[in-house]
């Protein structure tokens, strides 16, 4: 099965979810012919080698100063050109912000739909069945894109990267595309990179707060608890976006991924984008709302006001 993967580069490296998808394709699609689409201003040889290592047989490269930053119009145009040349059966991207932007557009230009945020897929005859959790992960929906070409995105965090990849150097071809003013309607101004000053990856204990913390000053108790437990603090994007706490503490799809022994989540609802970054041995939740999705993931949950519960917890732990 000819499979075209949109290769995403972040921080000068191939992004992990993309490598995860490659691993999933290798192990699920027998005799898959994996083609990587690699777009950018300057492309590194080491990326191409790494793609080969992870099972990509052919890399289609497209370079242009206009591809330095992802923009819907330019990237969609280039990917359509690649699709027309390669004629894949399956087109897939990691469901990052860019992946989720791109795939539906390609689908529309191919007069079809797409499956999104799959956590698994199976090959059934000549078709692919996508498994997607829906309604805050209450149900699993299995779908299929009918037609000659199937488009899909994976859920971030769904697949592991192959630790011992053993592929060989891929064949490299290139495609050139020209752009016009119609492709430049959305103007890139800047990317405000979050400063990652604290690495949470190795933290054994994380005390994290969400919008329920209701203000910058209330992070004090979160810090005190974290200190007391010898851990780090963490936060949802809802908190970092309004600068209640430094951006480095954001956990989830667009923040850091963590895997502590203990994760205490206070005032966090449990959005999939947050939870995809949390793999904790033990999860303790404090939330006023018993119906919050995060309760489903919790090992222990107190239904109560974090502003009352946390100070008591701190006193008792002293």
């Amino acid at each position, binding site marked *: 099965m000819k499979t075209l993967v949109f290769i995403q580069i972040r921080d000068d490296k191939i992004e992990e979810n993309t490598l995860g998808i490659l691993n999933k394709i290798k192990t699920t699609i027998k005799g898959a012919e994996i083609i990587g689409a690699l777009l950018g201003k300057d492309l590194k040889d080491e990326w191409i080698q790494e793609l080969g290592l992870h099972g990509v047989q052919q890399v289609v490269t497209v370079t242009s100063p206009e591809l330095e930053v992802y923009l819907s119009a330019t990237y969609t145009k280039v990917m359509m050109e690649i699709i027309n040349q390669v004629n894949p059966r399956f087109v897939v991207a990691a469901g990052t912000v860019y992946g989720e932007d791109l795939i*539906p557009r390609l689908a529309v230009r191919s007069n079809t739909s797409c499956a999104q945020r799959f956590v698994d897929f199976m090959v059934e005859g000549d078709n692919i069945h996508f498994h997607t959790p829906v309604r805050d992960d209450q*149900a699993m929906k299995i779908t299929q894109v009918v037609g000659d070409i199937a488009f899909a995105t994976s859920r971030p965090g769904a697949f592991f990267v192959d630790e011992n990849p053993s592929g060989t150097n891929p064949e490299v071809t290139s495609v050139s595309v020209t752009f016009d003013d119609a492709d430049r309607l*959305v103007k890139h101004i800047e990317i405000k990179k979050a400063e990652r000053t604290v690495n949470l990856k190795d933290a054994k204990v994380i005390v994290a707060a969400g919008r329920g913390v209701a203000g910058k000053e209330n992070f004090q108790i979160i810090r005190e608890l974290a200190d007391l437990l010898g851990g780090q603090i963490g936060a949802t994007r809802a908190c970092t976006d309004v600068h209640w706490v430094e951006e480095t503490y954001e956990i989830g799809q667009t923040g850091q991924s963590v895997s502590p022994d203990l994760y205490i989540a206070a005032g966090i609802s449990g959005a999939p984008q947050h939870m995809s970054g949390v793999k904790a041995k033990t999860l*303790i939740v404090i939330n006023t709302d018993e*119906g919050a999705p995060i309760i489903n993931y919790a090992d222990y949950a107190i239904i109560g006001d974090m502003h009352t519960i946390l100070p*008591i917890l701190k006193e008792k732990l002293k």
Partner: protein
Amino acid sequence: MKIVVFIQQIVSTQVKLQGVDYFDASRVSDDDLVINPTGKNAIEGALKLKDSQGAEVTAVCVRGIKPNKALKEAIAMGCTNAIEIADEAFYTDDPYLLSKIYAKALDKIGDYDLILLGVEEQSSSSYAAPAMLAEMLNIPSVLTAEEMEIIDSGFRIGHVLEGGKKIVEVPQKALVSCSDSQYFIPRYTTMRGILAAKKAVIPVWSAADLGLETSEVNADAASLKQISLTNIVIEKETFLINEGEPEEMVDKLLAKLKEDEIKLGA
């Protein structure tokens, strides 16, 4: 400025559905029907522009289960008009078909400067409709917005990005999908709004009104086909402490952690 906001009416995810309920809307009580949460964020985005610039905000809801409730709420929040799009034939679990219906509705609405939608429609977990619609209309678009500001040439928008935030500018006549960032936190309905909603007569457009053949938008036309839908059984057992004084609750938690030999601390 003319703004069109597409919202959906879903069964609140607070309600734990069992398999069969997904297919039988009549089993769901009216109280459990809500606007898709990020759709409400989109309404807020429109109303912020209405407050600052003056704008005509039209809320549009396709089919839904018993749709009018969502649109009444949209008006009660401050939207100027509402349009319900309903046809028994519609199959809206395919974002491609949904976007096709949206595009036709916009043809009929005519003039607009800005289209807003929520980032996601939770009941079918589809994030695709905004991008698909933008593509069908061939207009510039920005997805997962966290804040927006009017500038001379159109809008300046900050949107979610892995590892930070991206700032872009789009001309007017654009499509934007809104996230649940602080900027888009929805306002409450007002007394005045509720009265307006009571009085509002909401037109209902059918597939035929939009110039669509039902065969173009029914389940047979879907290219994203559902094969099955099953409840996820969570194997994890949660030790839930939902009663008692705060101090008792904490004691209960600590005792249970001790019993389970879970060490607090690194």
